[in-house]
Every structure is written in C-alpha cells, then in structure tokens.
C-alpha cells in the first residue's frame, strides 16, 4: 500500500508539486540525503513525460503518483492513462541512441520545428530515469503505462 498518493491534472505547473511531494516523502522515508536530488529529477522526468502524453491523448484524465516505503526500498510509481501502445513504444524506443542522436543532430522522435529541436525525444527522459534510480520498471497499466522507480533506504 502506498505511503502517499498524488493525483494531478496534466498541467506542467503541477510537475513541480509532484517533485516537491516526492522529495519530502523520500526524505521522511529515510532515503539518503545524497540521493534526494536524484529522486527529484527522476520523478520530474516521469511526470513530465506523463503530462506530455496526457495533453496529447487524454487531457481530462489525471496522472497518478504513488510513493511507497516498504522498509527496505523507497518506490515511486508514475502511472499515466495515455494509450499504452503509444507510450510503451516511446518508452521502449532505445533511450541511449536517442540521446546520442540528439547530440549528433539525429533527432529521433524529438519535436523539431524549422530544423531546430524544441523538445528532446521521450527516450532521453527515460534514459535519465534509468541513470538515476536503483531499479526501473516500465510496464503497461490499464489503458496507460506505469514507470516504477526505486531506491534503497539507508540503514537506520
């Protein structure tokens, strides 16, 4: 059972709120202070991705963030309701090559206007999450997708 659950409408302004809540709960759960920045960035990436997907596919649906402390690990699950086939395709499109592509001008699924990248591919955000969390699982959930990220708690 989640320690804390947050539901928010898919507005960019609310992503910061989700980050603040996640960081506060992680701190209270005993996640090491040195990892709190990583928790904040990872949950921000997952929520930003969910907001973009919802704005495209289901702007009236809320995004869910569940924060759970099981005694050994602190887990954050961000669940969207956007069509799973779209989001999972985004999620599983090779994150690392997308990143390298951005660097080299091969934009992959990036939003490009007038030949200039406006937004990096979704895979970049996922690459960041994978680089930050101890464990990451991306699975279909209902109509959408869940990104589960977890960190080990420090020994109290």
């Amino acid at each position, binding site marked *: 059972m989640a320690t804390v659950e947050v539901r928010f409408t898919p507005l*960019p*302004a609310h*992503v*910061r709120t989700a*980050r603040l809540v996640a960081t506060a709960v992680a701190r209270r759960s005993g996640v090491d202070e040195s990892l709190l*920045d*990583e928790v*904040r*960035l990872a949950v*921000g*990436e997952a929520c*930003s991705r969910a*907001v*973009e997907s919802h704005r495209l596919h289901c702007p009236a649906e809320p995004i869910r963030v569940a924060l759970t402390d099981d005694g050994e690990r602190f887990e954050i699950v961000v669940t969207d309701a956007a069509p799973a086939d779209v989001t999972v395709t985004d999620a599983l499109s090779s994150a690392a090559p997308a*990143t*390298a592509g*951005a*660097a080299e*001008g091969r934009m992959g699924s*990036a939003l490009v206007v007038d*030949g*200039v*990248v*406006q*937004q*990096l591919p979704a895979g*970049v*955000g996922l*690459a*960041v999450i994978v*680089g*930050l969390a101890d464990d990451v699982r991306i699975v279909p959930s209902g109509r959408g997708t869940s990104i589960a990220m977890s960190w080990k708690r420090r020994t109290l």
Partner: protein
Amino acid sequence: MDLKLGHYNKDGIEVVDVEGEIDVYTAPRLRELLIDLVNKKNYQLVVNMEKVEFLDSTGLGVLVGGLKRVRAHDGSLDLVCTQERILKIFRITGLTKVFGIHATVDEAIADKDK
C-alpha cells in the same frame, strides 16, 4: 522557485543569467529568450547556470535547440556550471561532449576568443 532570466552583453558576447528551476513548466520562457536573442543576431551566447536549482530533459532540449540555432549562423552556445547535481544530467545524456561547459563567465568568454 520559479525561473528568473536576465541577459547582458560582455565583450560582444551575450550572457544569459538563469536562476531557479528549468522544467516542463518554465523551459518555454528560456526557449523564447534564446530564440529572441538569435533573432536579434546574437550568435555568441553564454548561458550562466550557476544559480539554476533544477534542470530536467525539457531544459536540456531548450539548450540543444539554442545551440542548433546559433550554430546555423556559425555561432556557439557555451554553459557556465559547476554544480554537480546539474552537471549530472549532462553526463547521463552524453551532452557534456556537445556543450562547452565552463567554471566562470569570464572563462567561457575567454574560450570563445580563442
């Protein structure tokens, strides 16, 4: 903290001071500023990120977009950043190889003069 933006010219190079959080909510403002500077023919840019408290991949996208715009005019966009928590996202994404990243504004400007 919200995003605060400012800019000034030093030795012919436009320095952009960024303070606060660059995320999916605030990044469009930085994008607009960079586009505006390029439209006004400022092609040598330094973005000072020493007071940035948070940067995500949306912010990275804005910086990459700015870099591509100035490069289209044979310009450059360098960064000033010494904060480990901000540098980490550049390392994870491999973008440390794309941007010139400096410790001070003066160092970034001096490097452009080379």
